[in-house]
């Protein structure tokens, strides 16, 4: 891979990797560190990706793993003042705040399902959990997000 190709990959997938990391870690600096680590892994790998979807899948999976590693370290070493970033629109802010208030596993599952559009089966493969577990996490997330999502449907 040339540096120019890599720049294209950062452009294409940088935001996605960052959002997955942010949904797991909640802090911009930490999410950016993980994003850098993940994209550099891609830069270094000899792996041949069969498709764009394969690349996305690999990146998300590696991001989830890196976030777990980072979260373990941060939990022990840095008092986390969890202040998620806020989009401008009030309704978006409310949803983001609520999502970020969920336990980590729930918000990552919710993000991958609702934003990235992955199925529960695919999320299971991404986070190394059985599909039934993903469904249960989504159900619990949905429970907490119900009011906001319902309002959205009524708009």
């Amino acid at each position, binding site marked *: 891979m040339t540096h120019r190709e890599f720049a294209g990959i*950062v*452009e294409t997938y940088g*935001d996605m990797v960052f959002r997955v990391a942010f949904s797991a870690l909640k802090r911009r600096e930490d999410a950016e560190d993980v994003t850098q680590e993940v994209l550099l892994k891609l830069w270094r790998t000899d792996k041949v990706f069969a498709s764009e979807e394969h690349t996305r899948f690999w990146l998300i999976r590696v991001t989830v793993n890196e976030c777990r590693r980072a979260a373990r370290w941060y939990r022990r*070493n840095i008092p986390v003042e969890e202040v998620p970033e806020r989009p401008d629109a009030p309704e978006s802010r409310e949803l983001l705040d609520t999502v970020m208030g969920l336990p980590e596993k729930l918000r990552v599952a919710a993000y991958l*399902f609702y934003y990235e559009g992955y199925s529960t089966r695919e999320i299971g493969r991404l986070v*190394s959990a059985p599909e039934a577990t993903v469904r249960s996490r989504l159900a619990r997330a949905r429970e907490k997000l119900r009011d906001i999502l319902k309002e959205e449907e009524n708009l």
Partner: protein
Amino acid sequence: MKNEAFERAFSDLRLSGEARERILDAALEDGRKAPARRGFFRPLRAALAAALSFCLLTGVTLAASPELRERLWGDFSGIKQDMEPGGENMAVYDGVEAWIDSALTDGYIAVVHVAVRDTQGDRLSSVYNDVVASGGKLYLTKGNALSYCMFYDSGEGVEMSVGYPPEILGFDRDTGTLMLEYRILNSGFSGGPSQVSVSINTGAFGTERIPIERFPMEDKTEIEQGEQFVFADGSGYTVDTTHEITLDTSTFTSMFNNINSKTGWVLVSDVETLPLKEGTVGEASVFLSDIGVTLRGKSGTAGQISITLRDGSEPTAAEGWMADDQWGGVYDEIVRTVSFAKPIPTEEVESLTVGGAAVSFQ
């Protein structure tokens, strides 16, 4: 399905321009350093493999010299290309061989490298597959990890360690060899015995086989009552609150102790004990070695551990220096260990702080 509300809420979250620049710069920097890495290390690996073969065949303690250790840490991929494992510290089942490659401890942290090779096929590659793992257990048979816990014999009886699942360091497709790294905090140690041995549970060997499968990576404290795990062949188990797992084949085992009376403990190897530098901060004792920092003190001993090297640099987690942070302890004493992702020779450490307070060394 995509949800519009989610799309609006999250689409404002973007990687900053500065971060993009940093990543591209880091790739450039990385590219300048690494273009010949594979080729360069090939002769080194061959020499190292020969050295390790000699160690294995003659029973010499593995990874005995700092230089050899440094090389072991430096490049694992393909390390086994010319190596023929042998000796007593190898377990074999159904054509799958597992052996201890190196083992280091400073008395508090142990770092053990285990190689696994399939001599009859390509079954291990499916384990490595697309995963860059940070944890995860390698399952060779139903419900049995290779391995979760480790036992130390310090010469005064066997003590169980506090352990985490191994990290997969690399997979050499040429030889079908998987390299695993275990990092373990042994709260049973008291300052580092001169020599210990380590046994790895290969309880998996000898029981019913299923296709090799990655176990879902779950933190045991977060496993939920009634949660179901299903393997690729359709078998599985349900978690219950007693922390016992019932396989659907009626096999019964204990998840967290992973004790399997059928097979016992094998893969015994000597462990090289590293020298410790001892210090104090507040009422806590601090031990620094090449592979990590350990605090022993009352419950509540905490705070960020940071190191300044003699060249003025400060290794951080983001740079990949600090690895797992592990806790253990007995009664009101707590043992906290931060193991390094790469070794940092103690002589290169200028200062060490815990929670911002400088550690004083004798």
